[in-house]
């Protein structure tokens, strides 16, 4: 049963995507470490770290797409889970500094020493152990999401009301983490990391390793999301998105479904944050900023909501554009970025992936059902066509009002 569950995740599109990601995971570090610097195929460390960062953003976008694209929960606070994961990792990295801090205190991080903290606050205990920190990376965001979701979904807070209170959540955390009294380093956050699991964090090999880890995390989470959305549970999620009360009257406890994906998604965001921190070298409350969460939603929308692959593409593309613009057009890059957002909204309303594979979603659905119906328990294997070119369609392609189908309506 489990194997068929995971097997379900695979099809042509997922296959292509995974192949590319897999290649990147192998080739980029190899290009950095094995190819000599003089070679045109050498990948500079700068690019490795940058791409590693993109991958963690992509994982965050994936998490958002899972709740927004499939379940219609528009979270404007996912950066909070990302940042919490990041802080958990940051705390581990801080404890690893040990006596190498500027004051040489074996226990207290530097910022505590110069603000005259006498002892380590209780919530810092345990973070010197990697397994504990790793657990916290998923547990803290997961628990927060669980508690928050437990209340919000039970109270049936939906639509913009939910979006705004997720924003209130991340904003409140932003303010809380800014407070130096909280013991998380205030505005400066956690920085000056030395090593991770004994590896020097500045070494090229560590960076390549982190890149590969980010890629791997993305692949695994992608598979999970994929399997999830293609299971019956995935169908229920889409049902909740499209007609929440209908789903309820069918006997599904909508709040349980929402809580499940919401918590799962928060955990994925936490993992993304944890991989992000060692690569950029700092975690500070700025990561909680509501604007960050809004940006994530925009990545997903640009890539194509409810497509998973689109979230990844959107995140990478927008961030790449940002990297490029801020260097190439430092004075006016906001015009370019803002213009891009407006352009995509107006001319690619389904996002990049959605536009390129218009109608394909519908086909896929038919294919799956057809396969089930044909009596085979085997999930459908790769259909013989690529996303861009639907082939052997017996049913005429639905004409104009396809928008109602592929275009998920907001929960409100």
């Amino acid at each position, binding site marked *: 049963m489990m194997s068929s569950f995971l097997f379900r995740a695979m099809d042509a599109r997922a296959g292509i995507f995974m192949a590319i990601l897999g290649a990147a995971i192998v080739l980029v570090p190899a290009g950095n470490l094995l190819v000599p610097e003089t070679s045109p195929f050498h990948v500079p460390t700068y690019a490795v770290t940058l791409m590693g960062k993109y991958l963690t953003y992509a994982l965050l976008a994936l998490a958002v797409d899972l709740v927004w694209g499939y379940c219609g929960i528009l979270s404007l606070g996912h950066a909070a889970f990302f940042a919490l994961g990041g802080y958990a990792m940051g705390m581990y990295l801080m404890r690893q500094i040990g006596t190498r801090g500027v004051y040489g205190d074996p226990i207290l991080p530097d910022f505590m020493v110069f603000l005259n903290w006498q002892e380590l606050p209780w919530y810092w205990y345990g973070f010197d152990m990697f397994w504990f920190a790793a657990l916290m990376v998923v547990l803290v965001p997961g628990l927060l999401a669980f508690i928050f979701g437990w209340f919000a979904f039970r109270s049936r807070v939906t639509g913009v009301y939910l979006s705004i209170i997720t924003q209130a959540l991340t904003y409140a955390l932003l303010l809380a983490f800014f407070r130096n009294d909280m013991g998380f380093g205030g505005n400066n956050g956690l920085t000056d990391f030395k090593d991770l699991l004994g590896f020097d964090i500045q070494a090229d090999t560590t960076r390549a390793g982190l890149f590969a880890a980010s890629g791997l995390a993305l692949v695994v989470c992608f598979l999970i999301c994929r399997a999830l959305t293609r*299971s019956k549970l995935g169908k229920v999620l889409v049902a909740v998105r499209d007609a929440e009360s209908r789903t309820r009257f069918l006997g599904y406890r909508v709040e349980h479904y929402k809580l499940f994906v919401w918590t799962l998604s928060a955990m994925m965001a936490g993992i993304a944050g944890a991989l992000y921190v060692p690569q950029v070298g700092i975690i500070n409350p700025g990561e909680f900023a509501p604007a960050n969460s809004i940006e994530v939603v925009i990545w997903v929308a640009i890539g194509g909501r409810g497509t998973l692959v689109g979230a990844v593409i959107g995140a990478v593309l927008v961030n790449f554009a940002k990297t490029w613009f801020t260097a190439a057009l430092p004075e006016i890059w906001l015009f370019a970025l803002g213009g891009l957002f407006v352009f995509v909204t107006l001319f690619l309303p389904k996002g990049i992936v959605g536009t390129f594979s218009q109608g394909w979603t519908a086909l896929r659905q038919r294919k799956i059902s057809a396969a089930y119906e044909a009596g085979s328990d085997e999930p459908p294997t790769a259909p013989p066509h690529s996303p861009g070119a639907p082939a052997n369609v017996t049913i005429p392609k639905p004409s104009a009002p396809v928008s109602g189908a592929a275009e998920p309506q907001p929960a409100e």
Partner: protein
Amino acid sequence: MARSTSLLYLDGVSVSFDGFKALNELSLTIAPGEMRAIIGPNGAGKTTMMDVITGKTQPDSGEIYFNGAVDLTGEDEASIAELGIGRKFQKPTVFESHTIWDNLELALKAPRGPFSTLFHVITGAEKKRIEVLLDLIRLGGKRNELAANLSHGQKQWLEIGMLLAQDPKLLLVDEPAAGMTDAETAETAELLKDIAKDHSVVVVEHDMVFVRSLGVKVTVLHEGSVLAEGSLDHVSADERVVEVYLGR
């Protein structure tokens, strides 16, 4: 009829929204296996009554019992649906980005928890059941079509099909014939009569022709309570009913 022998039992149910009394001391009893038509002018409280039964709205006062013994007040939509009450909305509501097949599969009686659905693999029995339903709602040929692409009438049928897939004891059907052609209306009436053979059904309808073609006991609602009850001929002879429908 006594509560213990009823399938659905409402007694003295009141609901008000910001001072407006949507239901006013409504009492109504449905017997097992019965098919009942409910009529009434706009604002008579028909939809609110359905909301109250299905747990969408909590009554301010009054009792609601299912199967004679199960208290429905305080239960939510999901658990009431699990108990065996299915509901069709006034406006046809199906999952538009799913295929007909998926719509039915989602509705099929099966464990409803997230973890059961996560690892759910469709069984042969389930497939057969879906086939039967597809035939019944005459959508067999469109099984792989997205629900969004169905006509209005087909959506109504699909929704009824989904109701049946739940295998409920009681079906609440809100205006099944709204927006249908005459032919479709007639077919729908036949479909409902078929269904009523082994389910209890409550039909809310405006269309008198349709109600007449069902040929069942009729309850007239007005201003949130029962105005008259009996056969269609009986109630349409009632002066108060005539006044309510034509008077004002």
